[in-house]
Each structure stands twice: as structure tokens, then as C-alpha cells.
């Protein structure tokens, strides 16, 4: 599975404004609703419900909120870099500024986990995180996310 199978250029946000975890999830749900046509409320609820089981802030300033939506046709990924880091109740208590949102269809089966593993492995790479933090535009961010698929398999 490749990152380019998950994210399109329009699903990359270079500077998302949010002051809290809840607000960040709300904002992401709004953008994801625009791109997928799914109801914003349903997306937000799914993400919030997942956070209740345990935080998706995986450490090093990265969060990977995710969840399943029954009617979604295919896996949907969205990447956002935050304007300024926020508290995400992350595993290492560090504030989060890189968020990869992943939504999976009801019948995604093992693909959901594979996609998460792929994203998690990508963002675990310190050099990639540094580059993502140093890039200006959404285009540059997108290029970084998909270029890695060849080397960091």
C-alpha cells in the first residue's frame, strides 16, 4: 500500500489553525466532509469515539486520528500541519503539530490496519518529520509524503 493511494494533493493542509484537540478534530472533520461528501458530524463522532479508547497521539508531535465510516467507498487519508502545536494527550505528552487523518470504509478489513501501519512507519522517521516541519506549501508537503514510498517501504 502506498501513501499516494490514500492522499490526494487536495487533502493536504499546510497550516491548520486550532487551539485544542477537539477543535483540531472538528476542523479536520469539516475538511474531510468537503472532500468525501460524508456528513461532518458523523466523521467528527467517529474520531472522537476512537480517542475515547485511547489517544492517537503517537509521540514526537505526531497524531494519527482514525476511524471507520460505514458508507465510505474507499480509504481516505488527509494530512495537516498545524499552525502551532497543541496538546493532544499524546503518548509522550509532547504537543502535536503533524496530523494524519485516516478514514476507512465499513468493510475495510485488514486494509485499515495496513494503511495505519504504513502511515505510522512513515512518520516515525525523524528526517521526514523534520522535512515536513520545514516545508512551506501544501504542494511541497504532498511531494514529501508520496516521494518516500519508494525508499521507506
Amino acid at each position, binding site marked *: *500500500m*502506498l501513501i499516494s493511494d490514500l492522499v490526494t494533493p487536495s487533502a493536504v493542509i499546510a497550516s491548520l489553525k486550532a487551539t485544542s484537540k477537539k477543535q483540531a478534530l472538528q476542523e479536520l472533520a469539516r475538511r474531510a466532509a468537503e472532500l468525501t461528501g460524508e456528513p461532518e458530524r458523523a466523521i467528527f463522532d467517529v474520531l472522537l469515539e*476512537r480517542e475515547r*479508547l*485511547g*489517544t*492517537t497521539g*503517537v*509521540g*514526537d508531535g505526531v497524531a*494519527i486520528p482514525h*476511524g*471507520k465510516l460505514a458508507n465510505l467507498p474507499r480509504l481516505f487519508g488527509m494530512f495537516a500541519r498545524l499552525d502551532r502545536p497543541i496538546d493532544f494527550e499524546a*503518548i*509522550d*505528552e*509532547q504537543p502535536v503539530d503533524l496530523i494524519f487523518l485516516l478514514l476507512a470504509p465499513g468493510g*475495510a*478489513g*485488514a486494509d*485499515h*490496519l*495496513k494503511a*495505519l*501501519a*504504513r502511515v*505510522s*512507519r512513515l512518520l*516515525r522517521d*525523524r528526517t521526514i*518529520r523534520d522535512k515536513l516541519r520545514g516545508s512551506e506549501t501544501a504542494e511541497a508537503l504532498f511531494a514529501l509524503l508520496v516521494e518516500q514510498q519508494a525508499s521507506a*517501504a
Partner: protein
Amino acid sequence: MEAINQLVFQLIFVGALLVAASILLVMISSRIGAPLLLVFLGIGMLAGEDGIGGIPFSDFRLTYLVGSVALAIILFDGGLRTPRSAFRIALAPAASLATVGVLVTAVIAGVIACWALQVGWLTGLLIGATIASTDAAAVFLLLHARGTEIAKRVSATLEVESGMNDPMAIFLTIACIEWVTATQAPISPLHIAGIFAMQMLGGTAIGIGGGFGLLWLINRVEIAAGLYPILAAAAALTVFAGAQLIDASGFLAIYLTGLVLGNNRHRAQQVISRFHDGLAWLSQITMFLLLGLLVTPSALFADWRAEIAIALALIFVARPAAVFLALAPFRFDLRERSFIAWVGLRGAVPIFLASIPVMAGIPDGMTIFNVAFVVVIASLLLQGWTIAPAARFLGLELPPAPEQTARQGIDLPLSTDREAASWRVAPGSPALATPFRDLNLPRRTRVIAVIRDGAVQQRDMLDRLQADDYVIALAAPQHVIALDRIFSAPSTAPGGKRRGMGDFLFNGDVPLGRLHDLYAIPLRDVQPEETIDAYMRRRLGGTVEVGDHVPFGTGELIVYALDKDRILRAALAIEPAEDRLPVLRLLRRLLAGRRAPDA
């Protein structure tokens, strides 16, 4: 008179200077990560006859005396610091390693020594016996080296093993020497079995009895506070030497004495603990300096091919074989077994034991001594230097605990059920985020005073704590760690630290069925209603420690945070451990000879 004065003050001058220099070098060595003990040994060698100091020293008897006291003190301190919980989970595997493990190590190393040095099998076995036990000083010190936290079950096993395995090695060494020096008919197996029983059972009984006796004594007598640690040390050494005098294992006894004292509330707890911390350091420094002085480096490598061969065989063959055999009945996975096998640290004990044959005048005495010395250096260099990387490589490293707060315990009367301590508030600590009166402190915690810039603050006037304030509080013993968290800076976890710990955190009360719904993880022999907490505890058996892992689906669940025995949070690792560790992934791919399909 003049001459005596000269000699006395020369001795004091050189001795004190060496110790001071060793302590100052600790700073440098911790920066480059070199095992401290090696540094002390090196200083001793430098000061010795072949080094710049040029001090001729070859007094095996004095070394044996000082070494005995130092080892005993180190074991006592190790016992004081081993919490009952660690002892409980580690006792069975550690006991197996300390007996079967030591025997197997001694035999395999002995056979190799026989072959490498072309000596008789009894001498070979004697060499094997001297180098068969891991060293308490080295293990306690290196496992707790700066910034390394290793999965509890593994580190506890290694520590308790090192506290208990010296008696077995000592017993084997002495049995071999008796055998070598026996003039008449060969010694009967029954005699050997008798010695063994006396060493082990006698040592255990005297140690535990001595521990409770010492506990009773300390809680009964009223003496100046500064005398309690001295009383503890003197009484412990009495137990040690008393046991040795009647042919029971004093080393086992004094470790158990420390264990009993350290795990029962007693008077002057803080003073005793701090004093013995210092005393154990001094013992390590003195012992290694002296051993460094004792050896003649130029003679050390007379037979270097054989010596290195024995050292490598011990590290790569004998220890792993012994660990895998001794741990076969216990639940450890391959990574944990490998780590335990790798951390077979040798320290002062082999050198110390190898000085016995020299003193007993056994023909190959010096050869045995030199082999032991080379083995210890090789072990400290190869294994001592690589503990942290090995833990990381095998995914056994835990995320760092919050940085140690400047917490100072305060001794209270025995009958109180709370502990008193002072904390220095760290910059960036959670306590700074909320106004003082709204601080969410654990139940039954009472702040006694806040001190800022040397002045006690009016508490009702205090709006918010500041960094470097001192907070003095009473708290229930189980809440002290929670207070540490509140007053210390959040851990600055660099990326690599977390690597072994999986991808996502889940609360312990989440039912496994939810994970199945979300990720389509197959549930084999599991009820969907079973919670993560219940499932992991069921699979782990009686005891649970942070870092313990249980297979789940294609990956595993790892214990992340505990409250007593309840699992508060667990990390879900999506992929099996070897896939999470880049090095192992690469290795596996190389072995498979092809690129694994992209996940």
C-alpha cells in the same frame, strides 16, 4: 619515626588521590558511556607497576580481605535496593540461572579452557568456575545507567540472578580447589553435596534470620541518627563473616539480609539508604582500583590467544547456552532470552575468585588469574558498553520515566502511614500550569510548606508555584510517584526511545471486540467482551510489569501503564516486533533473499 611517617602519609596521599581521581573521571566516562568499572580498573592499572604510577603491589591476601568486605557491602546494598515486587517476579528464573545456569556456564567454559590452554580437566573446570557468575556490582550499575529503562521482568531477573549466583561460583571454585589439592583418595560426591547444601541452605537461613534480627535491633535501639547506618553495616558484615566461618555462603546471606531490611519499614530508612549508596560506591571503586593495581599488565597477555578465545567462548557460547537451558521452563520470549544471555556481565567476582588458587599455591594459579582478568575486561568492554543499544535493538527498552525530581525523603516515626518528602519544582512541570489552590493532588496528600528563595511562603497568599520552589508534603507511600510526576518536567522522549512500544495507546478497560470492529484483528480464543486488561493479565499469568507483551492478531499488546496490578493503558503494536525494528527487518529480508511485499 620519620620513615614511618613518610610511609603512612604516602599511602594515604596516593590512596585518597586515586579515589578522588576515579570519582572525577565518572563524569567523563558517563559522557562517553564507558562502563565505570572499567575506568576504575584502568586507573588502578595505570597507577600500578607497569603504568605511570609505578606502584609495585602484589599482595593477594590484602586484596582478598578488601575484596571480601567490598563484595559483601555491594551485595548488601543491592539487597536493600531490590523491591519485593521485583524479587517476587524474578525469584524462580533467577534461582535457576544462579544454580543450573552457573553450573552449565562453568562446565562449557571449563571444557573450552582445557582445550585452549592445554591444561588438565580439573584446572579447566576451576577456570570455568571462577568466571561462571555474573557480577552484582556491574549488573546493578550498568542496568541503571543514565537514561536506560529496561523491561521490568528482564532487568529484575538479571539483578536477582547477580545477587544470588556468586555462592554457586564460589562453591564450585572451592570444591575444585579442594579436589586439586586433595592428597589422599578422591573426594566423595556425598562430601561435595554436603558442602553444597551447607552453602546454600545455611546461607539462606542465616541471611533471612540475620535480616529480621537486624530489623528488630534497628527498631529497638535509640542511638544517634548517624550511627544507624554504621550499625546496619557492621551487623550485616557480622552476618556475612559468621556465615562464612561455618562454611555457609556469606555472600548469599548478606544479600538476603539486605533484602529483608530494605523491604520492611524501619527507623532511619533514609539515612541508611543514602549512607549505603555511598558505601557501595566506595566499595566498587576501592575493589576495582585494587584489582587494577594487583594485576601485572605486561604478564597478563602472556597467552593472549587462549585468553581471548576463552573470553569469547564464554560470551558467545557458554552464557547463551546456560541461559537458554536454565530459562527453558520459564516464560520468556526469544528477545528477552537473548538479552539476558547478552548481559552476562563479569566484574570483580571472577578476579576475586581467581586469587584464591594463587593463594592456595596451585601450579597454574597465575594462569587462572590472568584468564579471569582478561575475561572480565572483555565482558565489560563488549557487553558493558552495549547494554543500552542491545536493549534498543531487541525492543526491550521502556519509554523513559519522568526525569528524576529532586525529591528528598524525610524520616518519620515508624507508626505513621505516610511519607514525608520535599520536592524541587522543575521548570515546565505540570504543577506550574494551574493555580496552587487548584492543584489536583492525590488523596491524603498534605502540603506542609512551600519555600521560595529560601523563605517559607504564606500559603494563602501563594497564587501559583514557580520553578525551583521547594514543596514539602506528606503523602501516602503509593502516591509519592504521582507527586514526582506533578513536580517534575515532562519526559523529553526522543523518537528512538519509544520505538519498542508499539503504535497506539488504548485504555485497559477497552473490550477486545472494539479492536476487532475497528481493525478487523482476528479474535482467537478470546471473548469480544474481554477487556485488554483482563486479556493481558490472563495471558501473562500472575504478575504484570510495564513492558510485558502479549501477542494479539499479527502484532502485540504491550503493557504501558499500571496501577497496582491493573493495566491502565496498553500499546497496540500493529506489526510483530521484528517488523518494527528496522535492523531486524533488514536482517530478515537479507536472510529471505528478497524484498518483503510492501505492507
